[in-house]
């Protein structure tokens, strides 16, 4: 979740809020949901009997072929290892004796399972979907807003600079240590870096290298509130990877 920091809560008077009241739209909205739910129920009550009839017809038709299929399929099932799909289907419907040897019932099981998938996805998606907020400058250039400090060269060049500058300590090479050092530092109103400390250490060799690089980073644009520079702190992870 991305946050947009403002100094104070947006202010609004009770009168203004009351002028936004619209109970009719609440009644309409609720009616819309109930109508939709009713139609949905109606659709289900009509669809389910039809589905049951179709299913029983399909199941009743298949026993004509069953003895042959049964005999033909049985040895094959014992000898040939089941494909992952078959295994899955067998897991899903282990107790249906008719379903096992026949192809058709398993197909109908697969068909039944298919529409369930999107529902699960729909339920899970809103919870897990990452918020890819677009940094619309329009939204950020607003009054009463906090803007984080950023390197004068811009973050893209800044990360390239770190990549270029950060060197794996030669003395640690024999131990093949990999990981990150998390550093914290202050950026004053003028954009100068100070007070570099290590929050997550990877050992002195790496910590010192991380501190050295952070201290070498040229000027910063300080954080601002309504365009006014304010002191801020920033934490950064510097990753050390063992190569060669």
């Amino acid at each position, binding site marked *: *979740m*991305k*946050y947009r*920091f403002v100094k104070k809560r*947006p202010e609004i008077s009770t009168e203004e809020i009351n002028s936004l009241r619209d109970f009719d739209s609440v009644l309409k909205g609720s009616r819309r949901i109930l109508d939709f739910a009713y139609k949905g129920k109606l659709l289900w009550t009509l669809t389910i009997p039809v589905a049951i009839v179709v299913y029983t017809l399909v199941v009743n038709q298949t026993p004509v072929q069953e003895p042959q299929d049964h005999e033909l399929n049985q040895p094959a099932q014992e000898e040939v290892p089941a494909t992952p799909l078959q295994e899955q289907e067998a897991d899903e419907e282990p107790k249906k004796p008719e379903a096992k040897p026949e192809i058709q019932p398993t197909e109908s099981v697969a068909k039944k399972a298919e529409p369930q998938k999107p529902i699960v996805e729909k339920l899970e998606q*809103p919870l897990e979907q990452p*918020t890819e907020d677009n940094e619309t400058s329009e939204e950020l250039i607003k009054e009463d807003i906090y803007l*984080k400090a950023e390197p004068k060269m811009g973050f893209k060049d800044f990360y390239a600079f770190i990549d270029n500058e950060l060197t794996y300590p030669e003395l640690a090479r024999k131990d093949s240590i990999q990981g990150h050092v998390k550093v914290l530092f202050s950026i004053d109103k003028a954009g100068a870096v100070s007070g570099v400390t290590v*929050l997550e250490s990877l050992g002195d060799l790496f910590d010192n290298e991380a501190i050295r690089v952070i201290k070498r980073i040229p000027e910063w644009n300080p954080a601002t509130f309504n365009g006014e520079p304010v002191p801020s702190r920033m934490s950064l992870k510097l990753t050390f990877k063992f190569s060669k």
Partner: protein
Amino acid sequence: MDSQLANKVELDEQLIIEQSKKDPKRFGAIYEKYHEPIFRFVYSRVGQLEASKDITSSVFYKALAHIRKYRDQGLSFSSWLYRIAVNECYDFFRAQKKYRTVALEDYMHADLLEELQLEEDEKEIWMNSLPSLLESLDSKDLELIELRFFESKSFKDVGFILGITENNAKTRTYRVLGRIRKEVRNFS
């Protein structure tokens, strides 16, 4: 006397809810009572007037549409509205790819500072580090703090609103506060 009055108000509210199940227009009294607090709650998170108006409206019409499912669990009806409001806000952030507004001044609230047990010199550090500290919190942890300290909700309410148990709300809040305290001390 006060508690008798409070009980009467609760009973009246229950009565209106029961009546609303049969006659949705009766819900108007609930709407009048909670429209402003729910609107303010949404507006403080969304920060846009028009969107807040729509979200608040959807909170009430969803509550009304599902009012038959509402069961009195010893919590005020408003907790149910806040629960819907939180979900509606986060649906909005996801669907519209919007930022969640955070008012930094709120985080200088005396109750929160007391709970964080910060020394005087640490308070300034806390203020300067707020954005980077808060950015490291996930939305549920941020809501825990805001509901508890800025909306003054009980842990029972907080838990219900966020869909976790009361105990979990309590434990998680103190764990988050502990983590923040530790980070502020690291900063100093």
